[in-house]
């Protein structure tokens, strides 16, 4: 089967430091593929190149067999790649519902619709509410986003990704800063999404990664040193040496 996402020979350096060093990676449909690596391994640089906010120096990115290396960020989203943000970048001045509704609305070919009030369009409203319900935020729909807790912001990030109906969800450290209870909730949520959505998960929380991932790639100094099932990764000498050993 053709992989959903295929990265070949991707390179990106900043002032002589290779943040992405010949990365080759395949993400299959419906899998939850996790990328782990120590701080400064180049995880966020990789995500930025995938969603198009950063241009790679060399290499190709293919999505559904199509070369998307050079197409602009907003068009990639249109193809079905969506990302969540590490530092919460939700629209804090807007109600919770609007954050999700904007993701639903983005599925349309365009939003140059000037007349009808957006909140009265039931198609958008219903889809947004459904996404909120999936992450358990349905009761907060009309609250101001700024009033939500950190954990709820994380959940809302997932709801936004869900609502955009993405074929590939890039989740950038969804557990960051969560307490044990909230982490538990988030793992549960991701487990529910697993199998129905293709997810590329970048995460620090090892327990979460090993509990959830179908496959794991280990990124160290911009290089992928191993890819495999959680069991394979656990027993991989190179990984133990370069990464797990340090923990």
């Amino acid at each position, binding site marked *: 089967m053709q992989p959903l996402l295929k990265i070949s020979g991707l390179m990106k350096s900043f002032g002589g430091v290779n943040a992405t060093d010949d990365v080759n990676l395949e993400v299959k449909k419906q899998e939850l593929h996790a990328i782990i690596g120590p701080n400064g391994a180049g995880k966020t640089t990789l995500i930025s190149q995938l*969603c198009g*906010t950063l241009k790679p120096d060399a290499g190709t990115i293919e999505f559904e067999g199509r070369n998307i290396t050079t197409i*602009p*960020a*907003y*068009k*990639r*989203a*249109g193809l079905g790649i*969506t*990302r969540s*943000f590490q530092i919460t*970048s*939700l*629209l*804090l*001045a*807007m*109600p919770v519902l*609007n954050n999700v*509704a*904007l*993701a639903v*609305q*983005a599925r*349309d070919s365009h*939003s*140059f*619709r*000037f*007349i*009808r*009030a*957006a*909140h009265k*369009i039931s198609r*958008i409203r219903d889809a947004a509410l459904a996404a909120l319900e999936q992450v358990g935020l349905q009761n907060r729909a009309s609250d*101001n986003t700024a009033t939500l807790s950190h954990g709820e912001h994380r959940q809302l990030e997932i709801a*936004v990704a869900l609502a*955009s109906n993405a074929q590939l969800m890039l989740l950038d450290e969804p557990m960051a800063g969560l307490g044990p209870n909230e982490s538990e909730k988030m793992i549960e949520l991701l487990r529910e999404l697993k199998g129905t959505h293709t997810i590329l998960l970048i995460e620090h929380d090892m327990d979460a990664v090993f509990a959830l991932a179908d496959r794991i790639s280990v990124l160290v100094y911009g290089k992928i040193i191993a890819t495999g099932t959680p069991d394979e990764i656990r027993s991989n000498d190179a990984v133990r040496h370069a990464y797990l050993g340090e923990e």
Partner: protein
Amino acid sequence: MGTMSRKSLVTLFVLAALAILPPIFLWAGNAFYLDLATRLVILAIAAVSLNLILGYGGMASFGHAAFIGIGAYAVGIPAYHNTYGEFDLVASYNGMFQIFLAVGITAVFALITGVICLRTKGVYFIMITMAFAQMVFFMFVSLEVYGGDDGLVIDTRSEFPLINLDNPLHLYFLSFGSLVAAMLIVRTITRSQFGMVLQGSMGNDERLVSLGYNTFAYKLTAYVISGAMCGYAGALLGNFTTFISPEMMGWTRSGELMFMVILGGAGSTIGPVIGSALFVLVEELFSSYTIYWHLPFGIMLLAVVLFLRRGLLGVISGSGKNEGH
């Protein structure tokens, strides 16, 4: 919901006052106040149009007076040629044609400058919009045909069916009706799907891009709509003053317009109207006492920036935690 209804009450009150008071002033034999109200209402249209991009799109244009100026010259130049000959292509007193010119040219100007301005952000955007306005300012200063620095007198006002702009009351109600229309347009646009994207991009542009929106195109569209509405206000202003000069588009005018929006409260329908009302009235009051009225006026502006962050409407409508909707 409390703030919502209070905001609506304020809106109704302000609009009712603007509908009823000026004609009463006229009948009471005080035509001066009608003039004041007309100027106020026309500037309010410009402020409402600026608010569309400033208050809902986060685009702080410091060059909106240029649109007013271009709109005014779109009335003055055709009228001039109709009176003194030459350039038959545009020579006309026809108000519909002049407004078509005003709106069309400002829209095109906004489109061209917007493409460049919107590549920049923050203080660069502020300064570039200002610089483009200066460019238009200097163009008209050096156009000797139309009076250059000294400006141009409009001998004949725009001609419309049924409306006679030489009648101050007609001019006032045309302006007032236009203001209500402008407010409705901005209100509708900002609540639409388009408006959601616009406000989203103000909150976090990168997120909107990652969702798949070409935010540049949305912002540019809003910029063009705003510029064209401001051009329309300029056409009215030309008819009101019957004297136009490059001075109307100097950068201080753009600054004043921005102040009206902030003073009243950006990002609400009625805010800019309150702001321009207060601005015009205080200006009138101070300048009737002393020729040094810019001193207290400047201090007032400073005080507004330092202490009245959310604008007057923010104060009137109480805590106002739910900004916007």
